[in-house]
């Protein structure tokens, strides 16, 4: 489930990345058009236009001579050039309709170029015009002065000279007027006057003629340049700079409009997209809230579970300790059962062992008691026969009859071989009683209730008594071979040692099918230890269970047949005596248990005890 959730996050993450990218893209697109640039450009164009207008005005001023110098005309030129270059860079601002913008700008630049050229020409022509106009009065004065001098020196044609002077003044006036408000009529008039004035030149002194020429050339220059300047001014005015600027402006405006429209469209998209995003966010929020709810609930449950867990752990601990307690009790119970069951077995065996001699002892005694009647009768008869014999005057018949009775009775006893039989029965009875007392002695030896502590014990005695106890179990199963070595007394608890031997012998008997042999061997193992071996010719123990046989509760018997404690108790007893026990077995051949027991030093008798011993000796 977790894996599913984790993989479920992958497409969601992807979707998120895509959405954010789209959002970023749209945002960038709305931001890509720079409005400030547009306004800057518009301002630039306006400035250009204004400057252009000023320029034209300045040109006009220069022409009319209001402006005596050309700075106003040339100054804007630099600014205009710069602004034009700036305007030319506007192309970068145009993205969609670059072509339009470029052509507009190119047109503007051409216009500006031609205008600049015209202005340059105007400047030169105008300067010539200005120059001539400036020098015209001086030239007129020169002519007048020559005229004056000529009139003084030579009395030549004063009238002509007078007329000439008048013509000169008129020409000067006319030319000045013309320069202020030129017209074709005035030019023609001037031309005519000039031609008239010059006609008489030959007649005039040389100096006058020279001055007149200068004057005339100036007038001519004025006339010519005036026309040129006017033409240039017209040309300048005709250059469509403003229109081009307007064109650029138009392009800019349309660009702006387009950009605005596009921006609006993008905004709509953005709004739509944002709406979608908001919906998605809302959905995610709902999901999140729900998840949070789930997490909260689970958390609560976890907390509850945790609290429950503690309680459960406590309960379980209690249960476990209870179970442990029960186990201990049942273990104790089992050990008790084992004791009781071996006790029961022992009682059954001992009862059988005692009941058998008891049976024939009792039977024999009853038979003897019965036979004693016959013997008592015989005795009575004998006595009465003797009495008859000893009685004086006894009748022979009576005596004979009595003697026959005695004879018959004696014959009966003899025939029955009674005395021999009685002796036999009594001997058997004595034997039975001996057997019974032997059993009782062995029982006492075996339990050794009077000796629980460790004493120096003759192990052979212990083995013998255990064999007597187990006789009933063994006798039909095995022949017991005792191979007793020369071993010293061993410090041990006699009852426990006997129990060990009984257990091993019992096991050996149970392992034997049919008749077998149980061999009990004792020997001095080394300086400190004696060795006791109990070997049988039974079915043996399979190697896989051999290591387990000393484990408590291990049993191969059916349930209820044995507690599996016998050998574990044996092991425990041997361990408590600081001895060792091991088992070797071969399936089908038999099993051998080997016990090594330390002989142990007897605790040294105290001085007082030694003294007592000495006294006793």
């Amino acid at each position, binding site marked *: 489930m977790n894996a599913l959730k984790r993989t479920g996050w992958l497409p969601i993450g992807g979707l998120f990345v895509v959405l954010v990218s789209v959002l970023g893209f749209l945002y960038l697109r709305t931001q890509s058009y720079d409005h400030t640039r547009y306004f800057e450009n518009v301002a630039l164009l306006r400035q250009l236009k204004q400057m252009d207008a000023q320029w034209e005005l300045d040109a006009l001023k220069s022409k009319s001579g209001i402006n005596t110098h050309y700075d106003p005309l040339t100054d804007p030129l630099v600014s205009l050039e710069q602004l034009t270059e700036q305007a030319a860079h506007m192309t970068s601002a145009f993205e969609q309709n670059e072509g339009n913008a470029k052509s507009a700008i190119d047109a503007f630049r051409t216009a500006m170029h031609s205008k600049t050229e015209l202005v340059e020409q105007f400047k030169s022509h105008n300067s010539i015009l200005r120059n001539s106009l400036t020098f015209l009065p001086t030239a007129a004065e020169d002519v007048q002065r020559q005229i004056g001098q000529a009139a003084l020196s030579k009395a030549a044609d004063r009238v002509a000279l007078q007329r000439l002077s008048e013509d000169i003044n008129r020409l000067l006036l006319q030319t000045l007027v013309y320069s202020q408000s030129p017209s074709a009529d005035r030019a023609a008039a001037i031309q005519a006057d000039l031609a008239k004035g010059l006609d008489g030149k030959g007649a005039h002194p040389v100096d006058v003629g020279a001055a007149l020429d200068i004057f005339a050339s100036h007038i001519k220059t004025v006339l010519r340049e005036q026309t040129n300047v006017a033409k240039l001014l017209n040309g300048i005015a005709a250059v469509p700079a403003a229109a081009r600027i307007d064109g650029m402006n138009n392009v800019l405006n349309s660009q702006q409009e387009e950009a605005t429209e596009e921006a609006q469209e993008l905004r709509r998209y953005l709004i739509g997209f944002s709406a979608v995003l908001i919906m998605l966010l809302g959905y995610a929020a709902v999901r999140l809230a729900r998840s949070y709810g789930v997490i909260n609930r689970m958390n609560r449950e976890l907390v509850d579970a945790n609290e429950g867990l503690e309680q459960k752990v406590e309960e379980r601990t209690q249960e476990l300790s209870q179970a442990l307690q029960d186990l201990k009790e049942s273990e104790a119970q089992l050990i008790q059962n084992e004791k009781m069951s071996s006790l029961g077995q022992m009682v*059954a065996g001992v*009862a*059988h*062992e005692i*009941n*058998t*001699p*008891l*049976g*024939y*002892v*009792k*039977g*024999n005694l*009853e*038979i003897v008691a*019965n036979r004693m009647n016959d013997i008592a009768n015989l005795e009575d008869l004998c006595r009465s026969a003797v009495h008859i014999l000893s009685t004086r005057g006894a009748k022979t018949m009576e005596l004979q009859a009595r003697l026959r009775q005695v004879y018959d009775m004696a014959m009966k006893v003899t025939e*029955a071989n009674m005395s021999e*039989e009685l002796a*036999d*029965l009594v001997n*058997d009875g004595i*034997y*039975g009683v001996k057997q019974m007392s032997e059993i009782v002695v062995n029982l006492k030896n075996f339990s050794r209730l009077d000796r629980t502590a460790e004493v120096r014990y003759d192990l052979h005695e212990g083995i013998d008594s255990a064999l007597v106890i187990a006789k*009933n179990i063994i*006798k*039909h*199963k095995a022949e017991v071979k005792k191979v007793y070595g020369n071993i010293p007394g061993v410090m041990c608890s006699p009852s426990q040692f006997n129990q060990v031997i009984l257990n091993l012998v019992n096991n050996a008997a149970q392992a034997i099918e049919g*008749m077998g042999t149980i061999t009990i061997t004792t020997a001095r193992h080394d300086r400190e230890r004696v060795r006791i071996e109990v070997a049988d010719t039974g079915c043996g123990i399979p190697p896989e269970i051999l290591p387990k046989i000393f484990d408590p509760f291990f049993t191969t018997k059916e349930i209820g047949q044995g507690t599996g404690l016998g050998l574990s108790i044996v092991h425990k007893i041997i361990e408590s005596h600081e001895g060792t026990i091991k088992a070797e077995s071969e399936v089908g051949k038999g099993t051998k248990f080997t016990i090594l027991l330390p002989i142990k030093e007897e605790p040294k008798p105290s001085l007082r005890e030694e003294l007592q011993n000495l006294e006793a000796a």
Partner: protein
Amino acid sequence: MTAATTARTATAPRVLFLDDEERILKTMKALFRAKYDVVTTTDGNTAIDYLQRDRVHLVVSDQRMPGMTGVEFLRKAKDVSPNTMRILLPGYSDLSAILGSINDGEVFRFINKPWDNQEIQKVVGEAVDIGLKLDGTARPAAPSSSEQAVPAIDGGILVISPHRPLYEDVRAVAKYSCEVVRVLSLQAALEALKIKEFALVVVEADPGAEDIYLFLGLLKQKYPQVVTLLVTPTADADTAIGLINRAQLFRFIVPPISSESLKSSIGAGVRHALTLRAAPAMLARHVVEELPEVQKQSSVMGWLFEGLRSLPARLAAR
């Protein structure tokens, strides 16, 4: 002593004693040689050989012996010489041995060691008398264990049990060969017995049901030809000994019972009942001991005595 030794002429009834303790055999010889032809041996196989060769009226066997147990010996003796009476003389009453001797050995009596001479003489006397009666009667066909089907018999089977499953089981086992009647209590059983004679009575008893043990004894006294089976979960040695000595119980069944073993028990019971009817002399085998006076006078069980006493005497009619 492995060879069977005889101690008297062949004219006297012959009794065989089997015990691994020779002194017991010596005592027995001393006790019985005056009246019987006493044969003794310490070995079961020798005893079986003897039974196959010679006529023996009674065998008395110890239980715990090397090589062959008493129960084993009695079972074999039953097979090789069915007319020979069988008594077990165990040194210690161990339950499995007693149940085995009932169910397998079909033993006549138990006598525990140490015995009382008078008592053993009496029981042996009774057994020998019956053995003499049986001697010469046709040897009933030995029931073979392979004979599975329960044969048909008049009278059918009475099941006395408060629990239904036993009845169902018995009916299933008897199939349609025998009628099976079930009653819940002893009172009802008495009523049923008044009306008709049953060949087989199967009783289920709860632990310590003294009245049922008593009933079985009284029933056998009244109708020795009725074969009885007891189903009880708890058996103790003394109860079992009492039931064989006083009620000649045919089978002592301890649950759980497999349907196979129930079938073989019921089948054997029916066959036994058929044999008894065919050879009335065999009935003597089933003579039971008189009840102890104390039990007879027990007022609690009075109704049982009265009830059984008032039952019609059917054997006389035969």
